[in-house]
């Protein structure tokens, strides 16, 4: 273990440098809500656009419906991205760290096996 005195000083320094968000402003939760709202909005727009385009033979009205549907898709994609960013990200981060570690270990093993010293004997 490293010298305990140094460790405590390092701990204090890291605590002092830690960037803290004001717990009163739960921005993550707001963005999560915005993501869900955009996803719902996208589905609603698509649901409106479909009967709108089928209910008319007017190409201009159908173009409007296509525009509306595309806006719905865009809204759903952006909403899904926000939702993933602010909900699953913290869970996935841990597994990502593990995958990165294992890939690094695999690379080290490959390098070791291909190095000249490993072929001795």
């Amino acid at each position, binding site marked *: 273990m490293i010298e*305990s005195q140094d460790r405590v000083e390092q701990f204090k320094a890291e605590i002092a440098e830690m960037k803290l968000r004001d717990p009163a402003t739960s921005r993550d939760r707001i963005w999560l809500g915005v993501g869900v709202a955009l996803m719902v909005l996208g589905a609603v727009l698509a649901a409106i656009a479909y009967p709108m385009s089928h209910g008319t033979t007017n190409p201009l009205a159908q173009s409007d419906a296509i525009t509306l549907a595309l806006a719905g898709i865009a809204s759903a994609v952006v909403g899904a991205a926000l939702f993933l960013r602010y909900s699953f990200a913290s869970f996935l981060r841990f597994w990502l760290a593990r995958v990165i570690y294992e890939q690094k270990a695999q690379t080290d093993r490959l390098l070791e096996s291909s190095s000249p010293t490993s072929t001795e004997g």
Partner: protein
Amino acid sequence: MTLANESANSAGDSALEPDETPSVDNLLELRNIHAAYDGIDVLYGVDLAVPRGSVVALLGPNGAGKTTTLRVASGLHAPSSGDVIVAGRRVNGAHPEQLARTGFCLVPEGRGIFPNLTVRENLRMMTYSGRSQQHVEEVTFEQFPRLRERRAQLAGTLSGGEQQMLAMARGLATEPALLLLDELSMGLAPIIVEELYEIVAQIARDGVSILVVEQFARTVLGAADYAAIMVHGRIARVGRPDELEAELSTAYLGLERTLE
């Protein structure tokens, strides 16, 4: 006189009672912490300090709020009000992973190991902190030689004591400055508990500050520098272990009212 009043009047308890200004000599301070689950209050103004380099035992009967206090201290549960101060800085709102990266380590009740991974794989998970696998294993096997023999064994097949050792080893692998231990003795034979607390005392001698929560108090008092008794979400009494030993049964059996 109630136990709480006795506590307030005791001259020897000042080490655990935070002063008005945050002290960097206390690695952890809880000030007037209130906490609730789904609107139901469980902590009512908890004040507690862990001085640098000391072992503090938080004792109390089942349901007293000990684990919630640890959860609040480690950022896992947001307090309704009050301040969590680490190394002189108020850290309310800090994410648990932020605190863990700095050297703040919680060994949870129920051990928190991966039962389907081997001992080595469990230790490998701790390399997130930037330490190499080799370093983590060196630190672990020096402190817990028995785990070296079990390194290829699935963690779920270890004995209760060995699982607890692995849980502690996972915490120590990050070289914490502050270690929080929750119910180390849960489900273990007294002889194993004694062995674990010898290791806790050794870790403390290495300079790590420790807050340990226990329901079964006798063994932990031997390893602690200070102790606090918690009853019904409040700190009822703080002091040196020898001062508190006689009052434990009174606090646990809820006899404080008869003392008034």
